[in-house]
């Protein structure tokens, strides 16, 4: 039983939204992830993740301006909610906890070889 449900890709998206702060919308998020993590992100995967995060209450959205480039369609800006922040923190904390719990030996390849 997890307190906060957050998948790996979801976490990436959530973090990226945080990175972009006020400029987080579909295209910018996609580009940010692609440049920072050098991995390809399809619009479909991204939008699904965004919708799921919004449904979970980790993100909230607002309608933004519509440019000519977008054929008059408004941008949808995302922002991290308090709950989203807590979810991120929780994930980070659990990771850190796990990291700190790993005994030194386990991470020392030489020992394993011997």
């Amino acid at each position, binding site marked *: 039983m997890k307190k906060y449900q957050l998948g790996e890709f979801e976490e990436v998206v959530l973090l990226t939204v945080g990175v972009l702060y006020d400029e987080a919308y*579909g295209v910018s998020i996609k580009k940010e992830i692609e440049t920072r993590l050098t991995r390809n992100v399809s619009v479909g995967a991204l*939008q699904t993740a965004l919708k799921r995060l919004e449904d979970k209450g980790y993100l909230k959205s607002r309608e933004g301006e519509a440019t000519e480039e977008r054929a008059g369609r408004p941008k949808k800006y995302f922002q991290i909610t308090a709950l989203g922040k807590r979810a991120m923190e929780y994930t980070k904390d659990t990771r850190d906890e796990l990291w700190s719990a790993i005994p030194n030996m386990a991470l020392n390849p030489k020992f394993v070889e011997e």
Partner: protein
Amino acid sequence: MEINKNKPPRLFLKFFRWFCHPELRNSIEGDLMELHSERARGMGKRTADMKFIFDVLLLFRPGIIKSVKQINTLNQSDMFANYIKIAFRILVRNKGYSFINISGLAIGMAAAMLILLWVQNEISYESFHPKADRIYKMYSRDENNGRIDVWGNTPALMAPELKQSYAEVEDAVRHRIVYFLVKVGHDHFNEMGAFADPGFLSVFGFKLLKGKTDALSNDFGAVLSKKLAIKLFGTIECLGKTVMVNDTDNFTVTGVLDDLPLNTEFEFEYLLPWNYVTRLGWDRGQTWAYTNAATYVLLKEASSPGAFDSKMTGIVKNHIKEGDGSTREVLAHPLTKTHLYSKAENGKLTGGKIETVRLFSVIAGLIILIACINFMNLSTARSEKRAREVGVRKIVGAYKSSLITQFISESILLVTIAFVVALALVQLSLGLFTQIVGAPLHIQFTNAQFWLYAIGLIIFTGLLAGSYPAFYLSSSRPIKVLKGTYKKINALVTPRKVLVVAQFTFAIVLSICAIMVQRQIQFAQDRDSGYNKSNIAYNFMQGEIPTHYDLIKNELLARGAAVSVTRTYSPITRIWNTINELTWQGSGESDRKTNFLLYGADADMTKTFGMRVKLGRDIDIKTFPTDTAAVILNEAAVDIMRLKDPIGEIIKDSNGTSWHVVGVVKDFIIESPYERISPMIINGWRDRYGVVNFRLNPANDQVKNLAETEKVFKKYNPEYPFEYFFAEEYYNRKFGNEKQTGTLASLFAGLTIVISCLGLFGLAAYMAESRTKEVGVRKVLGASTTTIATLLSKDFLKLVIISILVASPLAWLVVSNWLKSFNYRAPISVWIFVESGLVAIIIALLTVSAQAVKAAAANPVVSLKSE
């Protein structure tokens, strides 16, 4: 140009728009467009397009695709709540119209439900037997007097042969009705029962409470109905007890049947084994020409009834070389059809009760239609009031389809309310209706199927009533409506006129038919029956009556209970025998085929029945011993035999017996009062008499007469209960069917008129209301109340007159078609049409003029100030 160049592939954009969840559609589409134009700039349009397509296809995944259900139910339930709220508000605001609408629909639905209940009951006949679909009843078909007759009796010899020689027959059982005295200790009752073959109980599905289906294989075993068992023993625990039948033979009870269901044509209180017929000696001299048993065949599963039917059709005539029966064919008729299809047309069982069922089903449909027309008329007439609402809804963004949904759901709501009222009406009137149709009907509230049908009826009626107004109302133009230029002065636009005409046409046709049915009954009732029906009572010869007949007769006369007594073969209202193959002086070959009714009587026949003797005298065996070979003819017989001087003529039958004519009696009705009188021969064989007829003394009190008569019969026949019947009552029963049709037709004609007038009243009220201002102006300009009242009623009157013109020829067609089934029929008089037309006009005028006069009499100051 620039924009065009940047356009992504249309097809995929469309596809995306189609599948995408509407909430996400705009922003994602924006993203896609932005990416596309960026890519187009960077990598060229072609690559951008490819990537776009790729993106769209990858977007086609759950979470992005819209889920139709989710969105619709959310929206719709709210909208429906709103529709229902508005509908209720409108109902409450216009109490008058709501009342007219609901009561019209309720009456219509109640009438239709009654009819449907009855139809359902009729259709369910014999369907309760588990093997019903494999059981066939055998009918005989032969030519009589140039007409092909089909009847449900067959030779008793046939069943064993069918079972033996036809591979597809699983079992063949006989059934023959009998009327015996049944006795246990000192309790005795005359009861209707039947002889039946051992397989009877396993072929049919009558429910056995006690005993097994082989109960009839015991030669001395009898099966009783629950009713009779309780009557005789006070309990159904009577297996093994003894019953005395026919005052001579003892039977052991081997089974008890539950009382027969009401949807069966079978009628018996007990079953006796078939071979009792042999013990009684009733099958002595049995031939293939006698048709005295009902034969039922159970076919094996997966056998072809058609092939069986054609294979065995000659089974009877193959056994008869010449004479009666040599042309007789046999046909197999499905058991489930025996009730509805019992009348032969051209030698095929295609008619009968099914015609009434069809007729009344059509009437049920038409009554519902009429009630729906009211609804349509009132809602479209009042569309102006609703138009503003429609306009606002449209401007706020309602689709035409959602408006249609609104109005249809409104009408379904109204129909549902009407249905509840109709249920109450049906429940109230069921007792009366049950009496008229003579079938016990009831609403099966606990039956799921009933509710299924009920919901079906509601939806059907709701759609029928609501569809036209829905399309009409939803198509109004919002701008026009809201600007206020929508007003129509006349509430009677063409489609509405057509509907009113249709309504009244149907009401008038139905009332003309109802009048004509009544006339036909009256006509036949007024027909001279040829004898005096009043005060004639009769009972059946049973026990000691035949031996003591002379003593009984003398004592009845001596005590003054009866003024005249005679004995006959059958009651004066029924004929049991016919005879053909007769020859007489001057008769030709074709005369041998002529069928004569064969009746039998003794001294004082004409005196007892009050018949008129035309020539000669009664048969009187006591005074003239040779009268055992004497006959009386009726006038029809004299005509058909072309006898100039009938008295003393000799008639020979096929056995070579000679009969001499001693008298001619004026024609009297013994068969149907609607038919021509058939030629009849009355003879007097001592051992064939079955009925004692006595004319009660009109000088005495009827009750006293009957008490005296009972004493006499009890004295000479103490073992049997005294049961008497009145000839007049049985004569009147001959009109039963037509009376039923007549009552139902009148009832439904009345209802349709009421419903139509309700609608007319609503329309008139609405029109008067919408023309208030016009009336005010006219009055100010000097028009009189009468002129205005005429003006307002004129339109409606025109419609009613058109309906009369349409209805009259239609009604004439229906009525003359119906009358064709009677030989003795009332003439169709023009006056019926004139009368019912006038009545329609008067009723319509009364309905409309109340409104018209009210509007015309109103003070113009009030109406003109009312802005």
